[in-house]
Structure formats: structure tokens, C-alpha cells
């Protein structure tokens, strides 16, 4: 707090130096003679009262009113006063904001995020609207379903975030280090994810997440996906392609496990299709049994490596160990099982191809023969029955 106070003093001194004219600025006490009245409103009906005690405890509490409300030199002041310019003191932040997605500042004055201008607290203060635990709610004022997100055609991210692992850590555990909006997006200079300068631009995502998840980012950088992205192949996934950006789930939870394979499958279509033919997929699809092998149980998650790399869990030498994590007793012969076998590919899987073909032919021929046999039989039996009954003088059944 000592630093803050000294900065404040310097600012106050600077403000006094530049703006205190010879006619001596109004003293705050004089302003509060009127503006302390809690019911005071301007012509448009907006409150223009100031809570004196709150203001004095705020970060700007040592400033005089006129330091910010510079157009007011004397009393009585005009009905219309010029808006306060925060950038007089906060030039860096203002410059960042000017280049950001929030630059249309008519919609986004500083107070949108920092709250009541007369009750602004440092971001380390739990009363601040930008205190880490308050940030999601502050951003969510606009970026939620009912807010301005719809108006600007933005995804409603607040509900996704608040139910995510980050949101849970923050809202349920009060974990200050849990990622909140500004941990990834920054604060004043928030850029669109399409801007290469943005912290959320595709190639910058690993670094952004790596601010906290340093170990995993290193693993990722060593894997095929990380190397591909680093080489400029933007089809390869970064963190958010698999984990999503806002609705990030705990990866060991069943919800994430069940949704993970189609995510990998959205790029690895052939592998996904052959995976779906296997028992791993069949039992995984039915739920309630989340232990079943998903892509990353065998391939690894962040440091995905090709089978030709001896460090890969699917390298031939490592298969017994990898499969053995679930299949107790897995041996050399067991791991010859092909988790992506294609029974329709004669070159890759000849034995399987012919077994499938034989089974298909068996199924088709038996069913076709007996279908014809049964239909003919039915027709003939019914014909005989009707003939017999009419001969016996009964009504046709």
C-alpha cells in the first residue's frame, strides 16, 4: 500500500500543479455540501450524489473533486460539465484500451469494469470490481446470455466459464490464482483472437496457458501438435481446440472423457472411424464406463508422439506397458491387437478382411435363403388353409 500512496501523492501533486488555477480550485468539502445528499439527481435522473466515506476509503480518496472534474472552477458551476478524463493520469491504460476490442469507449468507459467512479479500489482489494474473484462477474455483466454479448454477436462465455474447472476453482474455492477472464485476455488491451498480437490468437494460446501450466506447455511443445503449430501449421490443435476456451472440464471427469474422442476425431477422421468399430468405442459410447480407452489414454495427451518415436507410449517396445495399464496380463501377443483395424481394408488387415467377408456372406446367404423359403411357405400354407376351410364350409379365417 505504501507504493500506492506515494504514487497517489505524486499524482495529486502533478494534478495540483497543472490544474489548480490562480482562482483556487473548489475544495471537496464545498462540493459535498450539496453532493453528499444521497437523493441528488441531475436533469436526466442519474444520481449525482457521492458517498463521502466510501470515496475517502477508495484509491482516489485523497484527491480533491476538482482534480478529476477539471471543468468546474467555481460555484455555482454550469449544469453541463465535461466528462472526466481518466487518461489524464492513466495514459498507458487508456492507450491500451484505445487499441482494444473495447475501444468504442462510449459503450465502455472505465467505470464499466472498475465500477462506481467514486468507489474505485485497487485490484488487490476484495471490494474492487477487478479483484480476481470479482472479474468474471464484472465481465459477465456484458458477456453473458442476457447481456450485450447477444447484441454484439459474441458467444455467451460467462455461463461456460463459471461451470468450468477455472470457474469452479474461483467461485467455489476462492482460488486467487485460478484463471479469470483477464488472466488469458489481458485487461485494457484486449484484442480479438483473430489478431496475431492477441494472447488468444491461435499460435499464442500455448504460451498464454503456459503462464500457469508451464510443465504441460513444455510437454506440448515437444509433441507432434506443438511442433506443427510452431512450424506454422494452423490445422494442428492448441490447448483450446481440445479443452475448449471457456467451458474447460477436468480431463479425468467422465464428461470430458466422453466428449474427448470426437474432438480428436474431428481431424483424425479415418482413425476415429476405425476406433468406432472397436470394442473400446462401443463400450465408451454407452456411458457409465469412462475408464475405457480414449485416444489419449494410448497416445498421450500433450506430448503426442508417432509410434516411430521410442518415447511414444504406442512405440512397439512400450505397448505391453501401455495396454497393460488397463489390461492386466497383457503380453507380446496381446498387444498385436490393432485398435484401429479396418475390416474393409484388404491390404492392411487381410485376415480380418476375409473373416468379415465370410461372415457377411454367411449372414446374407442364410437370411436370403430362409427369407424366400419362409415367404413361399407362408403363402402356400395360407392358400391351403383358406381352401380347406372353405371346403369345410367355414367362414374364411
Amino acid at each position, binding site marked *: 500500500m505504501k507504493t500506492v500512496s506515494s504514487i497517489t501523492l505524486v499524482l495529486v501533486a502533478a494534478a495540483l500543479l497543472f490544474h489548480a488555477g490562480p482562482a483556487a480550485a473548489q475544495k471537496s468539502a464545498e462540493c459535498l455540501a450539496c453532493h453528499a445528499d444521497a437523493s441528488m439527481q441531475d436533469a436526466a435522473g442519474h444520481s449525482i450524489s457521492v458517498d463521502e466515506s466510501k470515496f475517502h476509503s477508495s484509491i482516489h480518496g485523497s484527491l480533491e473533486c476538482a482534480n478529476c472534474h477539471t471543468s468546474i472552477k467555481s460555484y455555482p458551476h454550469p449544469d453541463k460539465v465535461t466528462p472526466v478524463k481518466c487518461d489524464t493520469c492513466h495514459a498507458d491504460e487508456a492507450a491500451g484500451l484505445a487499441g482494444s476490442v473495447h475501444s468504442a469507449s462510449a459503450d465502455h468507459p472505465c467505470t464499466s469494469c472498475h465500477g462506481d467512479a467514486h468507489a474505485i479500489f485497487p485490484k488487490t482489494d476484495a471490494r474492487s470490481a477487478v479483484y480476481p474473484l470479482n472479474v468474471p462477474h464484472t465481465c459477465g455483466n456484458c458477456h453473458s446470455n442476457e447481456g450485450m454479448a447477444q447484441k454484439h454477436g459474441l458467444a455467451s462465455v460467462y455461463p461456460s466459464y463459471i461451470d468450468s474447472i477455472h470457474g469452479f476453482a474461483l467461485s467455489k474455492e476462492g482460488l486467487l490464482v485460478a484463471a479469470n477472464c483477464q488472466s488469458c485476455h489481458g485487461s485494457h488491451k484486449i484484442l480479438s483472437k483473430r489478431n496475431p498480437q492477441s494472447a488468444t490468437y491461435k499460435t499464442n494460446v500455448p504460451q498464454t496457458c503456459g503462464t500457469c501450466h508451464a510443465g504441460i506447455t513444455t510437454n506440448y511443445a515437444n509433441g507432434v501438435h506443438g511442433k506443427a503449430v510452431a512450424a506454422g501449421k494452423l490445422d494442428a490443435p492448441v490447448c483450446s481446440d481440445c479443452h475448449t476456451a471457456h467451458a474447460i472440464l477436468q480431463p479425468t471427469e467422465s464428461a470430458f472423457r466422453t466428449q474427448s474422442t470426437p474432438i480428436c476425431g474431428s481431424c483424425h477422421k479415418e482413425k476415429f472411424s476405425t476406433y468406432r468399430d472397436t470394442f473400446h468405442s462401443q463400450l*465408451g459410447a*454407452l*456411458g*457409465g464406463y469412462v475408464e475405457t480407452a480414449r485416444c489419449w489414454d494410448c497416445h498421450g495427451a500433450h506430448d503426442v508422439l508417432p509410434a516411430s518415436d521410442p518415447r511414444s507410449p504406442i512405440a512397439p517396445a512400450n505397448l505391453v506397458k501401455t495396454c497393460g495399464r488397463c489390461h492386466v496380463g497383457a503380453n507380446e501377443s496381446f498387444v498385436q491387437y490393432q485398435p484401429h483395424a479396418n475390416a474393409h481394408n484388404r491390404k492392411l*488387415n487381410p485376415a480380418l478382411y476375409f473373416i468379415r467377408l465370410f461372415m457377411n456372406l454367411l*449372414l446374407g446367404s442364410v437370411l436370403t435363403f430362409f427369407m424366400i423359403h419362409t415367404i413361399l*411357405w407362408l403363402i402356400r400354407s*395360407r392358400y391351403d388353409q383358406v381352401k380347406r376351410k372353405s371346403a369345410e364350409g367355414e367362414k374364411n379365417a
Partner: protein
Amino acid sequence: MPDLEQEASETLHHGGKGRFFMRFTREQRALHAVLFTTFLGLAATGLPMRFSQSFWARRFASAVGGFGAIIFFHKLFAVALTLAFLVHLKAILQRGVVNREKGIFWGVTSMVANWKDVKDLVGHLRWMVGLGPKPQFERYAYWEKFDYWAVFWGMIVIGFSGYAMWFAPFFARFLPGWALNAVLVIHSEEGLLAILFIFSIHFVNTHLRPDSFPMDMVVFTGVESEEEFKHKRSQEYERLAREGKLEARVAEAPALWFTNFSKVVGFIAIFIGLTLLVLTLSAYFI
């Protein structure tokens, strides 16, 4: 068949319906009951796995407690059916090999196919299209023998491939790696064949065709009327009459409550089977 003779009741029931004749022993009827119960269970739990991406598979799975519950019941029914299969195998070997009973492995009463079955098949097909007289059948007609052997072969193939998946690391000790891929294909295709065959062809051939409609009760009650016997298996009837063994096969008429109970059970089984058939076909076309 000696055991049939032993079971034939001496107190003949001469109701207004005429005489009844024994066709299946209590053990055979029990075997059929265990077979269709476990088969329905295996089909109901196997199909969601085979068509795991279909809308009904997931709904059914979540209703019964997910994959864990499905595989548990699949294995439970599988073990029950395996035991029934072994009991049947033991009975056959006991009668045919140990007791040296005649007519088990060969002859007119055997389940083993013979030249008459080939002639019957051709003759039956000719009769269907109006090219000849209707063949007269012995104790087991050719389609009944086919049903029996289809189930017999099916149980060996599906059972073996199923246990190979269940105990994959163990089977991998003496099976090549690709066999572990093959067993799923074999298991699911053969299972599908059994399901499609039983729920469409067996149901119609044995129960729904005009001669038996809506259900042939003989596999539940064990007995059938003299008229039915003569009509369906005239050769067996005539042979028994010729050999003077007909009287030994006369049995009591089934109790009304038992017939009604059997009908309820049978219709439930047919209803479940047809439902599963529709779901299976829907997985291909929807």
C-alpha cells in the same frame, strides 16, 4: 425313445379334445426356456453394444446404468447359457455314447441331417410353388434340424469369441494378435445372424405360420393333440402306429393354467424379440 415312454402317463386323459401325445421331455422344454430367456437377455444387452451409436442404444444403456450394467448382464446370461449348453452336451453324450441309445446320432429320430432331409427340402420347396405334393415329415423336419444346428454352431462360435474377448490376455497366449480383432467381428456378425434368424425366420416357421398360429405350444407343454401330430409329422405318427409304440406316447392334456401361463411367457418372448428385431433394422436404416 425310452425316456419318453417312461414319462407317458398311464392315466389317459380322454377329454372332449381327443388324445394328446408327448413330444418334448421336461428337460428339453426346460432347455428351450433357458435358451430363449438367456438369448433374449444376450440380444437385449448385445445389440446396444453392436449399435452403440444408435439413439436407442444410449437411451437403453443409460436407463439400466450404462455400459457397466450392460456388460455385467451380458456376461451373466452368457455364463447361464454356457452352463445350459454343457448340460445339454452331457445329456446327449450320456444317451448316445454311455447308454448307447439308438437314434441319437443317426436314424429317423436323430437331429443329424440325412438324405431324406435333402429330399424333404427340395420337395417342400416344390410344394410351395405348386410343383408337387407336400412332403411327409418324421420326428424332426429339416428346418427344425437347421434351427438346432444353427444354435449349436452359433453357441460354439459366439461363445468362443465372447470368452476370447472376456479373457483376452489369457487367449492371447495361444492366439495370434489379429485374432483379437477378428473375434469381435465374428462375435457381432454371428450374433446378428442369430438375432435376425430367430426373431424373423424361427418365429414365423415355428410359431406364426398358419399351421401353428399364433404360437406352437408344444415346446412349453411338451404335448400336442393327435390331430396336430398326424398333420405335422405324419411319418412319425404312422411309424409309431406301425411299431405299436403310439400308446406309449399318449400323455395327459396340459393343465389349463399351465397353457395360459406358457402363452403369456411365450407372447412376452415374441414381443421382446420382435421389438429387438425392429430396433436392429432401425439401426441400419435410420
